[in-house]
């Protein structure tokens, strides 16, 4: 466990010296801030006109936060994970880590955890938006919805970061890792849902594999075991791929 933490801490600190990480944090926070502004403005407008369609139905939710955040994560996580293992392969520092008293899976989990903590840091900053919204509204925000929306970001970043780390372990070149990861995300996010319309018999399977179908359940405030298992399976798959890739490199 201490080894995982040692690796994770180095990666986490590394993000704060890396321009890419600042750009990612900036893009996410700026976009969310912009949408937050629109949400506040529109609810202020409807309040002025006397509560919109009669009653508290104008209360803004927080699902916009989850859907925007997750979409941006899908696009930016490849840039955060591309160098994690590929760069160690390129510079030869892998030889250092593989001859240190450290298990292969501890290395991979440590790398993943460092990136995960970085995303959680950004997520923690975004808490200001629901806190402000909560104080603006009379009945306050739907607490259950808020939990499921934040859970959607946590689960998605865990799964996609693990896949990114796994792919990064297969490469020596960061750019190759970047585009492979992005390609996989586009596939999971969007393409895999298509066949569901054409193959009725396997429709459930394609829908289950599609990331967005699980996210939309979470945005509606429902937390189901099947959705959680989906994201945790992808996390395990990514971390396993990374560990296997390191092992394969040793034997080559």
């Amino acid at each position, binding site marked *: 466990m201490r*080894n995982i933490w*040692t690796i994770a801490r180095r990666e986490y600190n590394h993000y704060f010296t890396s321009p890419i990480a600042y750009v990612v944090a900036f893009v996410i926070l700026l976009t969310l801030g912009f949408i937050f502004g629109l949400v506040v403005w529109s609810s202020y407008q409807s309040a002025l006109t006397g509560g919109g369609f009669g009653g508290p139905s104008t209360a803004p939710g927080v699902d916009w936060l989850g859907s925007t955040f997750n979409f941006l994560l899908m696009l930016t996580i490849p840039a955060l994970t591309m160098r994690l293992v590929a760069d160690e392969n390129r510079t*030869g*520092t892998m030889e*250092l880590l*593989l*001859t*240190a*008293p450290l298990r292969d899976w501890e290395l991979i989990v440590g790398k993943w955890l460092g990136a995960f903590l970085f995303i959680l840091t950004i997520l923690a900053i975004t808490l200001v938006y629901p806190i402000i919204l909560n104080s603006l509204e009379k009945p306050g925000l739907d607490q259950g919805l808020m939990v499921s929306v934040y859970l959607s970001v946590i689960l998605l970043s865990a799964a996609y970061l693990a896949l990114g780390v796994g792919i990064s372990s297969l490469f020596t070149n960061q750019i190759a890792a970047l585009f492979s990861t992005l390609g996989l995300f586009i596939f999971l996010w969007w393409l895999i849902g298509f066949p569901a319309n054409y193959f009725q018999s396997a429709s459930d399977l394609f829908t289950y594999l599609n990331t967005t179908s699980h996210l939309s359940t979470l945005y509606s405030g429902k937390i189901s075991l099947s959705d959680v298992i989906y994201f945790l399976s992808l996390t395990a798959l990514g971390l396993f791929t990374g560990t296997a890739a390191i092992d394969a490199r*040793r034997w080559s």
Partner: protein
Amino acid sequence: MIRVEGLTKDYGSRRALSDLSFETGQGEVVGFLGPNGAGKTTTMRILTGYMPPTEGSATVAGYDVVTESLEVRKRVGYLPETVPLYTDMTALDYLKFMADLRQIPDSEERAFETLEMVGLDSRANSFIGSLSKGMRQRVGLAQALIHEPEVLILDEPTIGLDPGQVVEVRNIIREIGKQRTVLLSTHILSEAQQICDRVLIINKGKIVAEDTPENLQARLVGSERVSLRVRGDSDGLSKLLMKIKGVQSAHNAPDGSVEFQFAPGQDVRPLVAKTIVNSGYELLEMRPVGLSLEEIFLELTREDAHRGKK
């Protein structure tokens, strides 16, 4: 401390090591000599747990490198040939990271101590990327020493250093070698002579010779060689030398000097000097010519071929 038995490693169809066996004792500094591609780095990578052998076994400090890899890695300090450094970290942060991976308590204190040991404490907070090659090499060495390992494995520790730094690094290794087992690879014979108790010469994945540096040289050098230089024309000098009793052979070297050989123990140098001066030549220089590693290799491979014929 290190015991290697029948070690074989194939990279695809290319055999990098074939049936390598050797042993080293505690507190011994063993030099691993060989040309590029001889299998030195491969052997070291197997011993440090970086990769498993195709066949054969190896133990370090009593632990098997394949089945007890983590135990081996805890006890070995390793400096790979391309020094693995994070150039965007400071020297101190880097060593602290390595100390943490080694689970050393008070890692920062230990990191600083190790930097002092390699004489870099004044650059502790410099980024590794801004350090000179010699300094980086020493940071790499510090990383290998940080956990006071029982066995130290160094792949070409003095390559690319300037002469002053070479002396420093050799002194550090000799100091460490007093208590710990050191296995180092080099292709400089004089380096092996200065710091190693024993030398293993490896070629094409096999050990071709194993002895103390002195014995190795004595065994291989059947005769002593001397180079001499005179003012002006040296034509006819080799013929003159051949007439002297005890001189085995003499010939003109391309650079204008003349080389001659004599059997060890029968030093003919005073006689040669007297003869040359008496013959009217002006003697400028007379110096012994050492046997270079290249020549030792030629010698050894010739021995191999010879034995093959028998």
